[in-house]
């Protein structure tokens, strides 16, 4: 067997006490697709950032890259060794154009002092061609959709032929079609002997492309093995250390009376003539490609946008949702797509984040009742099983899964009748994911009406009683999850099939 391209030997990383990485040994060989799996906060991103030179590991361990031994790397060293990373948060420059975002990194690592716009442009053009990504190279990345941002990050990583390509949850925002395109490239790179380190919480992806797994838990390597050795279940158990069950978690009780009735709803350039009814005690799944208008629909139901036409009834009463507060007043809650910017005050405490939306109920004459507040916090930390000893800690000391529970708890604290979740488990590991799904079921059983917007198909089929399919802003189908397989479902969404070729 050939020499590994990269080896970590006894690498550790401690953040102000937290041991993010604990004496990690790890090898990745040229031409292999290696999956790094683990729960939120298990240390994946940190390990990646150590490899890419963003974090300096604790003294003691060593990194062997392409035969050279390092105690630590700088970003430039890593890049020059042929390490390319697609970071979880994309690390793009929102203020710069697509072209510049794509070309800049390469130019820096080539140690160029001057800018040649022509060259930058040609580099960019080739880059997007590789993943046949259609985008205006002069658009500001800040104005792009989440998916396009992620595609920019991907294309950028593929420009200079890397020796090691690291992808930290590269597909969280992508549709299956885009994922397919990406995997094609991956396969191609692999055939050319490039090592690929892949982090994802989406099992079907992981199993589709990976040849070897390394599973870490609490910063320690649990096991390194082949896919054959694993099925979903065992895989999950290694990750969580608990046993795991992926049966449907859709509510079983009979749906109650209509709680949200939408008829002929429309918003210019987003969606039109959308009609459906949500009953108490049911989970309604809504899916569709990005840009199908699903997020706009959700935001219109939450008063962020005001629909141009159509009618919304809550509990039989017609309502006008002009502002978010109107929605909240009508007991509608919304768990946003991007929790970091839309969901959480990262520097504020977990407690603050939980009670923010019910502050007024917790205070008399504007004065906070500290006892009530403390009780509320205690209650929701328990009910949401948020893994924290001190709710007074800042939210950004929690992992994604736990952060998501905080957002959920915040809304449940307002005792809504209608709960809308947009990508409820994006980037959340399967352990937390399952918990969140079960929480949703309980809520439905308690008589809440729940809308789940997601393109995570297993999730969609697991949690929903009914699924609405959005295409170009119109509802084209209503699907009974029990009656379709994941393949069929994604075929309906993308118009291709999951293993089928990309148009």
């Amino acid at each position: 067997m050939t020499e590994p391209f990269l080896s970590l030997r006894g690498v550790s990383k401690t953040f102000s006490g937290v041991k993010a990485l604990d004496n990690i040994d790890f090898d990745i060989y040229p031409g292999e697709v290696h999956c790094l799996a683990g729960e939120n906060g298990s240390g994946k991103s940190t390990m990646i950032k150590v490899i890419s030179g963003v974090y300096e590991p604790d003294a003691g361990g060593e990194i062997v890259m392409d035969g050279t031994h390092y105690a630590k790397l700088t970003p430039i060293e890593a890049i020059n060794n042929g390490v390319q990373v697609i970071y979880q948060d994309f690390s793009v420059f929102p203020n710069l154009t697509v072209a510049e975002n794509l070309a800049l990194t390469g130019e820096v690592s080539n140690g160029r002092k001057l800018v040649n716009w022509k060259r930058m442009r040609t580099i960019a053009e080739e880059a997007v061609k590789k993943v046949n990504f259609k985008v205006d190279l002069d658009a500001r990345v800040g104005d792009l959709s989440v998916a396009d941002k992620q595609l920019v990050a991907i294309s950028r990583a593929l420009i200079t032929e890397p020796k090691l390509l690291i992808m930290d949850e590269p597909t969280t925002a992508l549709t299956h079609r885009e994922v397919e395109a990406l995997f094609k490239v991956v396969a191609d790179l692999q055939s050319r002997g490039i090592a690929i380190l892949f982090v994802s919480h989406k099992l079907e992806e992981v199993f589709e492309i990976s040849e070897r797994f390394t599973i870490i838990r609490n910063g320690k390597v649990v096991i390194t093995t082949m896919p054959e050795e694993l099925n979903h279940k065992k895989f999950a158990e290694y990750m969580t250390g608990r046993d795991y069950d992926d049966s449907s978690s859709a509510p079983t009780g009979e749906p109650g009376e209509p709680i949200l009735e939408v008829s002929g709803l429309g918003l210019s350039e987003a969606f039109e003539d959308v009609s459906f009814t949500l009953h108490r005690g049911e989970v309604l799944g809504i899916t569709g490609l990005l840009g199908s208008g699903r997020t706009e629909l959700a935001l219109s139901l939450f008063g962020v946008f005001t629909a141009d036409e159509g009618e919304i009834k809550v509990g039989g009463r017609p309502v006008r949702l002009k502002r978010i507060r109107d929605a909240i007043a009508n007991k509608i809650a919304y768990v946003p797509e991007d929790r970091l910017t839309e969901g959480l005050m990262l520097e504020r405490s977990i407690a603050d984040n939980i009670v923010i939306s019910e502050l007024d109920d917790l205070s008399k004459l504007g004065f906070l009742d500290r006892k009530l507040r403390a009780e509320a916090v205690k209650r929701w930390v328990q009910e949401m099983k948020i893994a924290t000893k001190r709710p007074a800690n800042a939210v950004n000391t929690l992992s994604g899964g736990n952060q998501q529970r905080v957002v959920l708890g915040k809304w449940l604290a307002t005792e809504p009748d209608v709960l809308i979740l947009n990508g409820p488990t994006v980037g959340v590991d399967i352990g937390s994911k399952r918990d969140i799904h079960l929480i949703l079921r309980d809520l439905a059983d308690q008589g809440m009406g729940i809308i789940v917007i997601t393109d995570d198909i297993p999730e969609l089929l697991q949690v929903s009683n009914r699924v609405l399919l959005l295409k170009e802003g119109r509802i084209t189908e209503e699907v009974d999850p029990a009656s379709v397989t994941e393949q069929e479902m994604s075929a309906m969404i993308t118009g291709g099939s999951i293993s089928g070729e990309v148009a």
Partner: protein
Amino acid sequence: MTTSTSTPTTTKNRFGFLKDLDPQIIRLVVILAALLLFFMITRGGAFVRVSTWQAMGVAFPEFGLMALGVMLTMITGGIDLSSVGIANMTAIASATVMLSMAPAGATPGQQATAMVVGILISIGLGTLAGAFNGFLVAKVKIPAILVTLGTLELFTGIAIVMTAGKPLSGLPMIFSETLGGKVMKIPMQLIIFVIVAVIIGVILSRTSFGAKLYMLGSNATAAKFSGLNSGSLLIRTYALSGMCAGVAGLVMMANYNSAKADYGSTYTLLTVLIVVLGGVSPLGGSGKLIGVVLAITVLQILQSGLNMFPQVSNFYLPLIWGATLLLAISIPNITATLRKLTKKD
């Protein structure tokens, strides 16, 4: 804002200093102690004299009150440069009214009513002016630093127009006797400051409004998605700041027994200096009243202490202030570096 929230990792170490304020407050306490010690040793008698402290108690409420307002706006991620303008404009307005209600030789009764009306006008007008700032920030969405820079010019301009730049003096005696007087040796100005500070402390730590301010400052988008009414929050915050400025205007009137368009023009940057020295992040979302109060005290003691050294020119004041600020913000960094070095060997 978004850049700072989008990646927790950077948020952490980029603004770490601002996140955990308590070290900063400890630092201020240490600095304060050191100052007291220094001046007691070098200027013993004169420094511990009651009159020295009374002099301070009379002086700092002027800019201290303004700083309290600025702190509120900075917690929401904004800033208020217009305090001085508001203070003078409102003072002039209420002086004008007081003079017309109780011209020279008015009966004590008239004077008293005039004073009450004057006080109400200052506070009311200050609140209005502040709300105007808030409106421009929240609704027109102009960056606060520009709004308040503009209104500083505007309000000062109005003050000049109202008085043709001349001072309005000859206020009813009762006014400066009351607001400029002493209660058991404690200057009224100081008492006013303490009252306002306590009120603001309660607002920040005990009310839902206060809690919301911090949340809004920490992440405006998330606050919006959580149903906070950022518009009214901001308007109320700047209104509060304006009110503090209005009260500061009253104190200045009491201290100078007159109102004028250009009193305290040096306070604008001083207040910002105080607030950041107090450990409030200009990015919003954090900051403690105690820190700001400590900062005010430190600066005042520095100034008064310096005036006890005839040979030291007051021009060293900015130098010392600046150095103090830089020191306060560098310490965590320096200590960190030292720790690294010591670890290495």
